[in-house]
């Protein structure tokens, strides 16, 4: 990646090493793992400690990731996620005029964890808790494409909901590759024939996908063709805001 800040890259490398260790690590171990001089690593660690990202064990002086930071790496409480996301979902609904979903993966389903109505005061039903198919929704595809480890493939062939649903293994794989490459997923009448959707990942502080953020609307209102839809820009911005809020509140 061009234009990266070296100090940040190094700090990230140090943090990754410390975070992925199963026990607190000494300075020498960390320096060896990131292949940098001990003095440099020591400077990085003191800074990380002063901002509260790493802690030092009292007796041994070994380093570990601070509790606050480790908390983010653990699975995020769905209620915390919802609380952090809601203001940004409201803003996204206001900006796009569309319904907004926040969706998490649960077993082999996509589950709606927060729902903001299409802001037109039309009668709508709260869909929080509703399970949706991973392969037939934009959110589900984002979650499938970014899942680590990959969810156990459903034994049976994916269910067909409309004539647009992708059910062939190869088709679906190609679609997920596209989602990984482009950073967003689309759904064009694949679950409900008259509904389309665009979704992007919401990343946690370690870059893992914590949820998918999606806008939904009638098929004729959303893009269906190739090319990056304009909606991706506000979606990515909102997802970034959610990530930052999670980061701050952790």
């Amino acid at each position, binding site marked *: 990646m061009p234009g990266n800040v070296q100090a940040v890259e190094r700090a990230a490398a140090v943090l990754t090493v410390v975070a992925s260790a199963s026990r607190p690590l000494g300075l020498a171990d960390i320096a060896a793992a990131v292949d940098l001089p001990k003095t440099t690593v020591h400077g990085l660690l003191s800074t990380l400690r002063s901002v509260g990202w790493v802690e030092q064990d009292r007796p041994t002086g070994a380093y570990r990731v601070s509790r606050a930071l480790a908390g983010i790496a653990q699975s995020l*409480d769905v*209620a915390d996620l919802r*609380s952090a996301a809601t203001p940004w979902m409201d803003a996204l609904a*206001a900006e796009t005029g569309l319904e907004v979903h926040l969706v998490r993966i649960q077993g082999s389903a996509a589950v709606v964890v927060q729902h903001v*109505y299409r802001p037109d005061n039309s009668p709508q039903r709260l869909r929080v808790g509703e399970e949706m198919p991973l392969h037939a929704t934009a959110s589900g595809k984002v979650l499938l494409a970014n899942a680590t480890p990959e969810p156990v493939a459903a034994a049976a062939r994916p269910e067909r909901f409309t004539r647009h649903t992708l059910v062939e293994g190869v088709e679906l794989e190609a679609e997920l590759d596209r989602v990984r490459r482009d950073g967003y997923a689309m759904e064009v009448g694949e679950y409900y024939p008259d509904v389309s959707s665009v979704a992007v990942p919401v990343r946690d502080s370690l870059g893992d996908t914590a949820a998918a953020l999606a806008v939904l609307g009638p098929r004729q209102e959303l893009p269906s063709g190739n090319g990056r839809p304009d909606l991706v820009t506000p979606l990515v911005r909102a997802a970034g805001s959610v990530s930052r809020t999670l980061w701050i*509140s952790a």
Partner: protein
Amino acid sequence: MTVPRLVAAIDQGTGSTRCLLFDESAQLVSMAQRQHAQHHPRPGWSEHDATEIWANVRRVVPEALADAGATPADVVALGIANQRESCLVWDRATGQPLSPVITWEDTRASVVVDRIVADGHHDDVLRATGIPPSTYFAASRLRWLLDTVPDLEERCLRGEVAFGTMESWLIWNLAGVHVTDVTNASRTNLMNIEDLDWDPHMLAVFGIPERVLPEIRTTAETYGKCSDVLPGVPITAAMGDQQAALFGQTCFEVGQSKCTFGTGAFLLVNTGVVPQRSQAGLLSTVAYVLPGEKPVFALEGSVAVTGSLVQWCRDSLGLVATAPGIETLAASVDDNGGCYVVPAFSGLYAPRWDPAARGVIVGLTSFVNRGHLARGVLEAAAWQTADVVAAIQGVVDQPLPSLRVDGGMTTNHLLMQTVADVLDLRIERPLYSETVSVGAAYAAGLSAGVWPDLDTLSRLWRRACSWEPAMDHETRERERARWASAVERAQGWMDISDTVRP
């Protein structure tokens, strides 16, 4: 890129001060926020530093502007919403505070209230101001300051001192005029609820020199132009935060109501152009007054402990790591397992008024686990709200059509569903839970002509979420009876008689 015309709102709250900018379609453009220190020099005392709060205003407004890529020239109007009843005195010549901000949570002035009640003024005060004498309101705090700050009373009589609630303090600093809005004035114990002016008899009862008081103005008019922070921008609205939330929820019709679920819960219902008398623990208050129009009143019921019970579970019990986590824990069980929590931490408010009550957790068996306790906590918030609604329905004839909600706890679906279930009422949350700031912006924009009328504002309200009641009648009545029985067990625990507020 052309910046649209913006309306700015300052929300000077109990915990923080924020600035929000809205465009002409009432969309939120940017927001900045700063917390200020909470001082508790003695038990029962609660103070803020007025200078710190003013400094925070001077920071958050430019931050919000920068975030929006805007300058003061892009701002058409400024509206202010504020923590109610918190007040201070300052020197008119130097602008320096002569006291800390004594907040609405502060009970130091109970001696003043006790004296006024002992002198037999309770009914006079209630009749004139629509609210009973209480440490909750500002007049007793001002009298306490006059009694304790050296020379203050003499200086007040010489006209050297200004008194004000937070909007007065901010407007003074922004525009150099000494005014208050009628919603804030209605929470002082000094304003006559009929003619909406300082009541001479009340000034005599509390011993307040009129010269120290700001001029009472309507909710939405131009008080002055900012010379600082937003140079040239007119300040066109001010209102107390709960009234601002009612306005932001566009509850302009009689019977429309909103409830803010935060630290405590505040339920206000629009009662129209005739003031109701405070009764059944409900307070009669001014909702808003628009220039040249009849004042609109509201009935207000509050629950002292809702979000703060969740906070207590987090900080004092370690039951959950975060406040939202209470929902996940509560959702781990199907019901309360027979466990009821009555958080009467400092007595019971509306509609029971029992200062001697203290909190209880009842119905414990070896079956009850953390999840049941968490359920009990959420249900406590819902049932306390139901008690307030029941009191309101005893005064307001028509049944509430629905309840509009806002505040931090509204992302808690289990709680909101429980509220819908126990109230047997549709609950609706609007886009942007920041209804206090929305209300201040709406009133300011209305007054500046950005929006032509209340109907236009009503049409800006957008439903973001709704919860329909799904509990059968039998279950609701059984749970109501159990809750009532739990509340009875909390009552009369302390053998004291203290002045309860409000």
